[in-house]
């Protein structure tokens, strides 16, 4: 498998007691990769390292095969980047901003797509950037990123703070582009539900470290809530990972597990406890439980 983004042991101190530590990302070429994490988990800093805007103090980074930062300039023209804090020139009009951006990409620039998106997003060419609403500015940034025909789109919380209608428009435009051009998308968000139907890979970052990276379907298939009667205190030989245990009414416990598959029901035949039910979790519940478990492990150190 080839990777559009690959990091090995990426590290960087970000503040007092907060650092990126041993971040290993493997973003398959052609995938839509959801980069999940709570606010403040280090998503934006990781992305800034990928884009050469923040220098990593440890490890290596490859973006579209180019080593970052040494070979980045050659790859940058093939990367569409929508940062969390939009960089647009306040004094320019929409049309001027588009023209300014198009010059930097010369032959790659797809003027037709740019114009189609401008109409679709209902952006007037003569509006000054400073007069755009937050939603309109977000749409303009997306237009600029898509019309440069990127092989890789890096989107940092592209829908954060936008209303539902704008969120839909923006995501639909991204998917339309992907269907057309087959690009790789690396999209960070704390809005887990939004990524559930889009992504085929997920990476979960917590407190500066990757706690899970796997295909979305595997992640979803393996996450279950089990209802277990007369559960023992210790489970030394369980074939799945217990992320959390909660007692419910009576003697029944609820376990949230990872790495589940149906054949594991047999394990309960030999164990002293009894499996009552297997309940599916959605991505958001799974994500929350995964983070809770990671934090408990961290505190236990």
């Amino acid at each position: 498998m080839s990777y559009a983004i690959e990091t090995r042991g990426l590290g960087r101190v970000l503040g007092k007691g907060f650092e990126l530590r041993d971040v290993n990302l493997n973003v398959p070429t052609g995938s839509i990769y959801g980069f999940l994490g709570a606010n403040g988990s280090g998503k934006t800093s990781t992305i800034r390292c990928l884009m050469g805007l923040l220098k990593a103090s440890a490890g290596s980074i490859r973006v579209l095969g180019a080593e970052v930062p040494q070979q980045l300039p050659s790859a940058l023209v093939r990367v569409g980047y929508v940062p969390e804090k939009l960089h647009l020139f306040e004094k320019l009009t929409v049309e001027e901003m588009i023209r300014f951006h198009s010059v930097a990409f010369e032959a790659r620039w797809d003027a037709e797509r740019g114009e189609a998106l401008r109409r679709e997003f209902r952006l007037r060419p003569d509006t000054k950037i400073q007069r755009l609403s937050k939603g309109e500015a977000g749409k303009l940034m997306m237009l600029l990123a898509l019309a440069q025909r990127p092989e890789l789109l890096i989107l940092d919380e592209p829908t954060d703070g936008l209303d539902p209608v704008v969120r839909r428009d923006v995501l639909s435009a991204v998917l339309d582009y992907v269907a057309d051009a087959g690009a790789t998308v690396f999209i960070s968000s704390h809005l887990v539900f939004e990524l559930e139907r889009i992504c085929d890979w997920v990476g979960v970052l917590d407190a500066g470290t990757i706690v899970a990276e796997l295909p979305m379907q595997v992640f979803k298939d393996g996450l279950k809530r089990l209802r277990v009667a007369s559960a023992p205190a210790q489970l030394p030989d369980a074939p799945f990972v217990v992320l959390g245990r909660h007692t419910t009414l009576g003697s029944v416990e609820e376990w949230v597990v990872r790495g589940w598959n149906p054949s594991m029901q047999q394990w309960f035949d030999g164990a002293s406890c009894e499996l009552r039910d297997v309940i599916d979790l959605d991505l958001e519940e799974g994500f929350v439980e995964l983070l809770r478990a990671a934090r408990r492990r961290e505190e236990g150190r």
Partner: protein
Amino acid sequence: MFDRIDPRSPIPLYSQIANAVRGAVAAGELRAGDGLPSVRALAAELRVNPATVVQAYRELETEMLIDMRQGAGTFVREVPPERHTAERRREFRQRVRQLLDDAARLGLTATDVAEILRDETTRGRS
């Protein structure tokens, strides 16, 4: 037709999309020669990964239910009427299986289930 697509369901999205098409064909909403939305349009509309739509369409193509013509679009194929009946039965059977799981969870026996089913079908007719 794709209103019931639910990303939170444990059934993979591509199966849900394929099932929606199967259901619409079985119910006669889609007839032979009718066009399906392009991969691009359906992905953007449902806000799902285009690869997911491709996977659904490929599955339906393998079943000879649809025909993906390069450049022209995707169309429903001629399907013998027996297959519609088979398809309706297949879909209903799936729902019955889910119901039986629920029944087992509630501790009901096969006799209980059969009795309730008989009650309900006679009630529906009167």
